[in-house]
């Protein structure tokens, strides 16, 4: 058997010798880090003077992971971090399929108990071992369904960035090469933003620290008021409430608000009055003393639904290094491809770079998975003849070994 790391490095060398990476801008001010098989960052604090120098390094070394700083430094290779001379940073928002709840995870993910005495395993996602309650190790996969959910979130964020923040220039999107998308905002106006300002933007996107009173939703003397001047978050929440009133069934509304179905049926029979009342700044009352609890629960639900699930750490930690767009992801062999049109982008197809030439591999385990428009598997302790791109994918994931 050939060693998985050497196999991958050979494949990556082939890729880098035929393809030039054109990212990032201001390369001489960026810090770089590299990883090997199953280790995303083995070394960091590297720097390059030009894209040419960077590409020549990639052609020589073919690292399995290539990351760079979204921050700009005067001397990016110095350490510790304070010596680098921070000059500013791009904004980066990261969405990951792992952070977004989708039903498909129950089909393609699996878990194994970390307690050696228990060692239970199962399909789907659990927080703790169902047999002994210990922590579990998750085996996570992606499919078109969960990546579509991530894409929807990314599209919502781009709308928000353009409409609410009015950042129209320098927005770039790339597939991470594994489970999500990165959205970059590269412009002089955001470069100098303070850490606190970045936290405020992240909180706005993820609806952290929301204060209903401050936004104009308040219960006073039996009346629940809502904002009439709708902008930003208050517009999003009011629109969400309108959608619930217009389109939700009484059963669903009852489940969200903890009310009786009969009450919700009666309530929803007055849709027009409820919507008119909202336009005048009042949330329609319910009989008895239920108004406050009902609308508060609905508002909480609105926040939960409208909050975008970005990775906070990636946006706030300015010393973090992230995947270089255009390079290969060492966990999948897929390209962290730049996305021109997110709506039509097919992550598990458009990021495939290796050929369809057949290769023999020994697969330890893989659920049914999709790549380049083809369905593969499931596999369990068996040899398989797979196209190069699927062989690289499974080997990079540590689920298969090359067979000569």
């Amino acid at each position, binding site marked *: 058997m050939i060693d998985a790391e050497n196999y991958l490095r050979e494949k990556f060398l082939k890729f880098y010798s035929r393809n030039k990476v054109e990212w990032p801008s201001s390369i001489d001010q960026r810090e770089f880090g590299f990883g090997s098989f199953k280790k995303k960052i083995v070394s960091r604090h590297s720097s390059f003077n030009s894209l040419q120098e960077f590409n020549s390094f990639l052609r020589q070394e073919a690292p399995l992971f290539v990351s760079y700083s979204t921050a700009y430094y005067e001397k990016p290779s110095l350490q510790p971090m304070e010596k680098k001379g921070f000059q500013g940073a791009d904004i980066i928002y990261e969405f990951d399929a792992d952070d977004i709840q989708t039903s498909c995870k129950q089909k393609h993910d699996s878990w194994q108990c970390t307690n050696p005495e228990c060692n239970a395993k199962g399909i789907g996602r659990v927080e703790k071992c169902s047999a002994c309650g210990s922590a579990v190790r998750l085996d996570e996969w992606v499919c078109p369904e969960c990546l579509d959910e991530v894409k929807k979130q990314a599209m919502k964020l781009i709308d928000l960035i353009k409409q609410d923040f009015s950042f129209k220039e320098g927005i770039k999107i790339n597939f991470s090469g594994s489970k999500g998308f990165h959205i970059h905002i590269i412009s002089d106006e955001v470069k100098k933003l303070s850490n606190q*300002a970045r936290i405020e933007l992240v909180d706005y996107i993820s*609806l952290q620290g929301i204060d209903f009173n401050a936004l104009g939703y308040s219960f006073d003397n039996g009346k629940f008021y809502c904002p009439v*001047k709708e902008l930003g*978050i208050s517009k999003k929440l009011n629109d969400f409430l309108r959608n619930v009133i217009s389109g939700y069934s009484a059963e669903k509304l009852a489940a969200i608000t903890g009310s009786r179905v009969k009450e919700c049926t009666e309530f929803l029979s007055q849709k027009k009055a409820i919507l008119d009342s909202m336009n005048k700044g009042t949330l329609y009352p319910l009989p008895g003393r239920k108004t406050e609890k009902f609308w508060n629960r609905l508002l909480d639900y609105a926040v939960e639904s409208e909050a975008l699930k970005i990775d906070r750490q990636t946006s706030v930690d300015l010393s973090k290094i992230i995947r270089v767009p255009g390079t290969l992801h060492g966990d999948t062999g897929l390209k962290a491809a730049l996305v021109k049109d997110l709506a039509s982008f097919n992550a598990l197809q458009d990021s495939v770079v290796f050929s369809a030439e057949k290769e023999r591999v020994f697969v330890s385990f893989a659920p049914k998975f999709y790549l380049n428009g083809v369905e593969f598997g499931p596999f369990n302790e068996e040899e398989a003849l797979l196209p190069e791109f699927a062989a690289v994918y499974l080997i990079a994931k540590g689920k298969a070994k090359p067979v000569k």
Partner: protein
Amino acid sequence: MESLERLCFARKYPFSKAAFSTVKEMNINASDIDEAVTEKAIKLILDARKKKEFSFSEASEDQELIKQEIAAFPVAKILLSYNQDLLLIKQFASAYNKTIFNFLEKEKDQVLFDIASELGIKYALPETFFCSVPLLSFLETSYDEPAMKLVNQKLGNGSVFLERNDFVRMLASRASRQFIALMPLPLKALPVHLKPVALDLKDFLKSKEEKAFEAMLKKGQVTFKGKYPASIEALPPCMKKLYTDLLEGKKLPHMARFALATFLFQANFSKQAILELFKKAPNYDERVTSYQLDRIKGKESKQKYNAPSCKKLVEMGYCINECRTSHPMQYYEKRIMELMQEKKK
């Protein structure tokens, strides 16, 4: 503007051009600052320490007195800079913020817009709101009030739409942030003869509560274990801020209380000492706090919690200083060593 009116304006708004030109016109000799001015500067600092707004002799029309009060502000900045106490500077900025807010609230709209221009804030006057400011300008200031968080604003098309009260809050916050950004002033530029005044003030300012707590530590009423003597003075700025907020009866968020408690345990403060401190919290419940402290210490569970790293504290928004450390304990241990060396001398 009439002379008296201009002076009163300068006193209310120390960041204004009127205030700067008044001080300049007074032609103050840096090596011979009037004692009355110094006293008024100390009073400003004491007001801030007591969490009060600055109090001026507002009824007086005595121009000399008003000028002294105007000059007191830059002198207070000098005293604060000698003290190098970031918490005190923050308290001063907070009092400054409150004072300006209260003055601005009573001003005519036109004055607010003039002040905005002085502070470098661009604004527009939309029909349905008092005014709007560009998003990036709004973000240049950070706010203490949760209601002023961006997520609670009316934001659209890159502008934050504000009602009058929030605009006033933004102006006051911007003035106090601009003040903080320049503090402490470089020591080399400060008049030497104010240094002893500043040092006397530093000693005086050691708050009664801090003294009382340290006295309890000394008397063994609350205990600590470990290789170092527990010292409030050695706390890193972030922990000192949380500690002081607690002493002042502020309701700290859960994560802030967690960060402080884990840190104090790691710094070898006893559970008893930490409980004593947490008694000041407005939502203190001895049973709950005691249980939570046991959990943190690992008594009730296998998991023992350590204090968050500097990186985590930055992320949580509790870092208030650039200490060049990766963990608050590094600062604490270094400071303890320094204090022990100082005592030996």
